[in-house]
Each structure stands twice: as C-alpha cells, then as structure tokens.
C-alpha cells in the first residue's frame, strides 16, 4: 500500500536530477533496497509504470540492488544473514550481536539520454 507514495518520491528525485543534467529522457534508475527498509521492490515497479507514463521517465527501467539483512557478532566479528528464527551467532553461539546491514533505501544513480 505505501509503495505508491514511495514511488512518487523516487520519481520526484529522478526528475529533479534529470533536469539538472539537461536530460531529455530517463532510461534507467538504479536503486539500492535493503531487506530492513520495509520496501517491496515488486510493488514499486507496479506503480512506476503508472505514474511515470506522462513524464520523461516513461518506459524507463527500474533496477534494484537488494541488500540482505545481516547481523554482526560482537564477540567474534562474524557477519551472518538474518534468518528470521534466531539471532545467535552461528560461528560462536553468542547472542550479543548487532544489525550490520539492510537499512538502505536510496536512489544511487539514473541513466539518461541528453
């Protein structure tokens, strides 16, 4: 549901940067999307085609680089993926761990035609 407003934000940011670069058309957007960001790439794609159609981003392609959620063990520094069941370190068994990645949600770059 909330992906619509997020998709509108992506469009706004992309159009602003395209204008600054004097671009005629946006052909591709490179997005980084972390597992802990709470955003579903497929839904963004669904709305994208709808809201971009009357802009210079019409027909552009969204590319998602997915960053998995990971944890880092404070005892042995081992970094491991979050599996949804346990947060214990699989290497040393300690449970003092911190989140180490997956919060990202940003527009990294756009590809344009001048």
């Amino acid at each position: 549901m909330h992906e619509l407003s997020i998709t509108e934000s992506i469009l706004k940011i992309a159009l602003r940067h395209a204008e600054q670069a004097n671009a005629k058309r946006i052909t591709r957007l490179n997005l980084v999307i972390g597992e802990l960001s709470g955003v579903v790439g497929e839904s963004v794609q669904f709305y994208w085609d709808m809201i971009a159609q009357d802009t210079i981003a019409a027909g552009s392609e969204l590319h998602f680089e997915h960053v998995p959620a990971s944890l880092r063990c404070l005892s042995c520094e081992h970094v491991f993926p979050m599996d949804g069941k346990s947060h214990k370190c699989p290497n040393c068994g300690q449970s003092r761990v911190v989140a180490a990645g997956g919060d990202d949600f940003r527009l990294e770059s756009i590809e344009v035609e001048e």
Partner: protein
Amino acid sequence: MKVPVVEQIMSANDQLAAANRARLDEAGVFALNVMASPGAGKTSLITRTVEALRDDLRIGAVDGDIATTIDADRIAALGVPTVQINTGGACHLDAAMLQNAFAQLRLKELDLLIIENVGNLVCPATFRLGEHRNVLIASVPEGDDKPYKYPVMYRGVDALVLNKIDVLQAFDFDVDYFQQGVEPLNPGLAFFPLSCKTGEGLDAWLDWLRREVIERREMR
C-alpha cells in the same frame, strides 16, 4: 549517460516530518508515536496513560484508523482533545496526515501529544511523523517470535512495551527468547512488561514517559 544521485528515497515524507517536529518544538509539545499490531492494546495503553497523567500534563491525542471513530471516542471520553484521522484504507499515518491534524489542535495548550498509529506491524515503521519518541507495543498473545519476523518495526523504536503479561503462562511466551530477538536490532532498548488490564508494571512505563516529557521541556 549515467547521473549519480545517491539520495535517500524517504526524503519527501522526512522533510514534512521535520517541519512537523519544528512546529511541535515551537509549541513546546512532546509527541509520542504509538505503534503495534491490531489488538495489541494501543488504545488501552493510551487510556491508561491519559488517566494517570492528565492531572500533571495537558494531553492531546491523534488517532489513526482505517475507518470508524471507536478508538478516538474511547480516548475523547477521558476529556482530552482528540483528532481522528481516517486513512481511508492506507496502512499507516504519514507526516502529511499529522500536519492536517495539527489544524484541529491547539498545540500551544498541550504538553504531550499521543499519536495512535494504524494497527500494523510493517508500514508505520517506514514513515516518520515528526514525533520525539516511538513506542512499540507487543502483546503476549502475538507470540514471542515477533522480533524475528518483523525486525524493521523493532529497529526504529525508543521504547518497547510488552502488554498482557497477565496471560504469560497461558501462551507459553518465552520472555528471554523475545528479548534475545530484540537486543541485536535495538541494543539497550527501554523495555516495559506490563498489563493494561491489571495495572501491573504500568508505573515504570509512566515514569519513563513523564521523564521524557520533562527532559524535553527542560531542553527548551
């Protein structure tokens, strides 16, 4: 041609949230965003909190729901100004909705604004409103595995309430397993096991909130 952007996507909502925050600060209001899944006890904790603090603090409430005014009516019945936001299907409150609610409140006459978000363990985490603190209410019947299944929600909060501890035994809820799930996501998170029904544990929660409101006031 490739144009580097490197911009956080949430910026539109974040900017509005920052504007809300500035208005709250100017009016001297401490805003608390209450999030939880449906049925965890958001309205119950809010009514308990209002009853306990209304003699010391001037409290207002904003209540977000997909439909109906059932929750807002419960809070308004306690004699505090309450604004209902019906999101019309949307699964969370956003900064623009809160901004609209401000128009119906006399912010300068409040010390504490309690915002009840839409019952949902996923979406509200992504949308900042301009609040000073976020509290998540988990409840025993939901099960002790929720931090593992909904890590995003547990990550971005300042306090965690575990409600309905009066039924811990009936649900085989393992508090240690629950807390072990929370700790890596949000180290040192303030944790308040309580029961809105019996009142057990409420004092620690109320002390925390009172302290937060006072600290904010002294920072002005």
